[in-house]
């Protein structure tokens, strides 16, 4: 006879195995049978029933002091095990207060597995679904671009209908509140660029040309691009999360049923704020980045005045404009992608998170791609 007892002692569930005079296998359950204490007993009992598949089995519950839903589930599990024709399994001795609960379940109805296996989707079908989804997404994006363009044109021709209070609030969120992070990143960018360039250039006595490199790289390219990438992560995700939460809370439905266009209410204000703030922040990032390069060059014995004169001689208005022209386009992309992902938010706890993630990822990819297109155009136009 083997016995399994589980911890702790106060909750001990026990199982004793034995044989009856008529040859039946006897499983004697005892103690407290609850979900916390029956794991070992359950495994042992199931194995004992399986090993006696051609014998009759008697489950003796006379010594069971307490039995909750977990204990009842164990008894149901034992009673439902497949048996041979002359190998019935029976239960005896369960106290009436526990029997009442057991009577609510027919062990035979629990034979089938609970969860149906996941449907097997064929590759061709998956490909078709993915393609259809791609076209649906493209249609949504085209519709969004059209709706937003129309709403922006309406705002341009009817400025009094724009919710300027919301625009200024968004300007504060997108612009003023982003100043510390833009300052930090553009300063570090200037320092790193200058330092990485100065070390090899010093070997040729060409440290002064670091000013050319830093000035051109930041003003033509990196100031605007880095600011845009920062804002895609910061404001684009915020737009998606805000609008997504509003959609989940049915606030967008409320706007629609009031006859108010969500695009005009939510997208236009954010778009205007971004178009106003991104160029300003980019200009500010240019200034900080170039100054950071100058401060770095002090450690290479290049005075700040010399550095700034060199920057002034190499960077002209055309370069500044080449950098700045891109920034309103970046602004439209950041706000547009953020708002679109917010409007596409699905229900469920993960919906808003997925929208924010998609806003950042697709925003950054598009920013870099558009920046590349600008570079090609500038090359062709010899700007």
């Amino acid at each position, binding site marked *: 006879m083997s016995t399994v007892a589980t911890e702790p002692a106060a909750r001990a569930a026990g199982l004793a195995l034995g044989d009856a005079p008529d040859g039946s296998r006897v499983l004697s359950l005892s103690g407290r049978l609850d979900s916390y204490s029956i794991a070992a007993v359950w495994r042992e009992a199931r194995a004992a029933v399986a090993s006696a598949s051609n014998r009759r089995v008697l489950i003796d519950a006379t010594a069971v002091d307490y039995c909750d839903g977990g204990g009842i589930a*164990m008894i149901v599990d034992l009673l439902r095990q497949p048996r041979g024709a002359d190998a019935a399994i029976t239960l005896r001795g369960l106290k009436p207060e526990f029997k009442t609960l057991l009577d609510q379940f027919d062990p035979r109805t629990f034979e089938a597995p609970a969860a149906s296996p996941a449907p097997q989707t064929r590759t061709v079908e998956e490909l078709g679904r993915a393609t259809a989804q791609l076209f649906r997404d493209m249609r949504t994006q085209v519709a969004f671009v059209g709706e937003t363009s129309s709403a922006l044109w309406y705002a341009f021709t009817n400025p009094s209908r724009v919710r300027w209070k919301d625009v200024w609030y968004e300007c504060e969120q997108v612009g003023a509140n982003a100043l510390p992070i833009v300052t930090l990143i553009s300063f570090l960018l200037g320092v790193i660029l200058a330092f990485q360039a100065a070390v090899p250039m010093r070997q040729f006595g060409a440290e002064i040309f670091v000013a050319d490199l830093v000035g051109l790289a930041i003003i033509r390219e990196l100031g605007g691009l880095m600011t845009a990438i920062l804002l895609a992560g910061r404001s684009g995700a915020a737009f998606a999360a805000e609008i997504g939460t509003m959609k989940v809370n049915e606030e967008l439905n409320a706007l629609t049923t009031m006859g108010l266009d969500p695009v005009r209410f939510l997208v236009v204000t954010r778009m205007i704020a971004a178009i106003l703030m991104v160029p300003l922040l980019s200009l500010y990032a240019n200034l900080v980045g170039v100054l950071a390069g100058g401060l770095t060059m002090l450690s290479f014995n290049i005075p700040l005045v010399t550095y700034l004169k060199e920057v002034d001689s190499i960077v002209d208005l055309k370069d500044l404009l080449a950098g700045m022209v891109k920034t309103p386009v970046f602004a439209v992309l950041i706000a547009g992608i953020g708002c679109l992902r917010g409007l596409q938010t699905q229900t469920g706890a993960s919906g808003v998170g997925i929208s924010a993630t998609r806003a950042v990822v697709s925003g950054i990819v598009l920013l870099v791609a558009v920046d590349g297109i600008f570079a090609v155009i500038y090359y062709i136009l010899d700007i």
Partner: protein
Amino acid sequence: MTDAPASQPVVRVEGLVAGYDGNVLLQNINFSVNRGEVFVILGGSGCGKSTLLKHMIGLYEPMAGHVFIDGNDIVTAEGDARRAILTKIGVMYQSGALFGSMTLLENVRLPLEEYTGLDEEAMNLIARMKLKLVGLEASCGRMPSELSGGMQKRAAIARAMALDPGILFLDEPSAGLDPITSAELDALILRLSRSLHITFVIVTHELQSIYAISDRVIMLDKRAKGIIAEGDPKVLRDTSDNPWVRQFFRREAEPETEAA
């Protein structure tokens, strides 16, 4: 199931003072709930019913007072002691609060995975049996978003019962349900109470449900900032001298204040 003898209260609230930001919402709250009772906390909107419930289940810390679950104070308990108390109770929230990324079976199985050493087959069987108790065994593999409001609430009750707690707290179980579904839920509560001897503490203001399921009620009122009546709801309806209690049970509107 709780181990407390039938005569001993399984929930005892003593001198509870509750509020937000220094503003007292409820004061001097004292009552107890006996084993196996269907106990209802009722009152008008904004009187603090759900706030009281959240103090009783340890979500909010009271400004003063104690809440004893099976003799253990949930207000002062910490760490393992607090976890031990929490395994004695189950909670169904107003919205159901099922985890949207999990099937019903996985929702019910979650507490078993965290608190027991059972193997997967055993946990699945227990979860299926809980869902069968609430009439949802056929929906084991469905996601919460695929269910109606009433089904979500029933599934939430199944999840709350996963570890066989002796006490179930239900926050507005009838809210947002049609009368038929609401009556079905009332019948389920009564069946679970009678067959499993579970103690129910229910927050509601639905009079039909209150009459159908409650053994005893307390009534809160925001003007009194506390309990204004306790007892059998039908007796309170017919005999109470308190005008606020009569007003509630007779569904009378507040008299409108006339403009000067």
